């Protein structure tokens, strides 16, 4: 094996992610290769430096505000779901009642009745197809995330 093939293994070795066999293989190479030894030392130094860098811990007041904000979002999510479901039920019910009344009403012209029924069916079909498209796009989006990388 050439040096280039050992290079990525240095990273795995440093992180303790190599199998014992591969570690042994690399160690044998390291014993003979000055360049790879130097590279390993550099990577070790970088890793140690990064290990010293810790994120700032926010003060209690800020943590409290942070949690309040998350909590509000949790509630809002449920609120939106209930609101949407409620709105759909109310709208459908109202529309159904209106149409039923109109169809029973002998004063309304037949042509208008046909028109309204067609309108409602058209709206339903468009809504369903739009919904299906949205779901399909979401699926593709999830898939492309993996392919892209």
């Amino acid at each position, binding site marked *: 094996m050439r040096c280039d093939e050992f*290079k*990525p*293994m*240095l*990273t*795995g070795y440093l*992180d303790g*992610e190599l199998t014992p066999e591969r570690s042994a293989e690399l160690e044998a190479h390291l014993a003979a290769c000055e360049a790879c030894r130097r590279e390993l030392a*550099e*990577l070790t130094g*970088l*890793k140690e*430096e*990064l*290990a*010293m*860098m*810790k*994120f*700032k*811990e*926010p003060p209690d007041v800020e*943590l*409290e505000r*942070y*949690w309040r*904000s*998350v*909590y509000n*979002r*949790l509630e809002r*999510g449920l609120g939106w779901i209930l609101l949407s479901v409620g709105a759909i039920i109310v709208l459908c019910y109202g529309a159904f009642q209106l149409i039923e009344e109109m169809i029973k009403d002998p004063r309304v012209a037949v042509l208008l009745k046909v028109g309204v029924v067609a309108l409602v069916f058209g709206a339903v079909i468009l809504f369903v197809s739009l919904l299906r498209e949205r779901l399909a796009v979401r699926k593709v989006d999830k898939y492309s*995330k*993996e392919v892209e*990388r």
Partner: protein
Amino acid sequence: MEESEATLIRRCQQGDEEAFGVIVRRYAGAAQGAACLLLSSYDDALDASQEAFVRAWRHIRRFDAGAPFYPWYATILRNVCVSKMRRSGRRRTAQLADSHADPSPDSDPVLLAERNERRDRIWRAIRELSPQHREVIVMSHFQGLSYKQMAAALGIPIGTVMSRLHNARQALKKGLAGEEL
């Protein structure tokens, strides 16, 4: 006495929001820091880290209560950040004609506990990496994910994680050397 994470998660799974509050407070600092490294602004980082907690809460019942919370959360956070970057990338392309101002230090702060010149420089160098390199550096060095966990989060084989992380570290070394000149 501090409650164990497994107990807290189990309480969350029964719908106990206060237990989730304990977890959120515990990891808020780490979450904001990581998001800030991944995204360009503090405001975006704050929003993404909170959004990721909301998503975690929604899926908490699917989570294995015995497993550590943070690596799982880190995966969710990464996905939120990726979609945020994609959205803002689109917005930025649309506004290409606008002035190309650098982000102010206020909107892009260094969220480190103990700072010095060298650490600030490393922070900036990480921010200069490509998104692909940046995320493996953040996951492995700042969020403590194993290769296996990163492979699952990114949907790539473990061998690819190793080579990508290797390239990312090389790029970071180069970036740091370049800044010293």
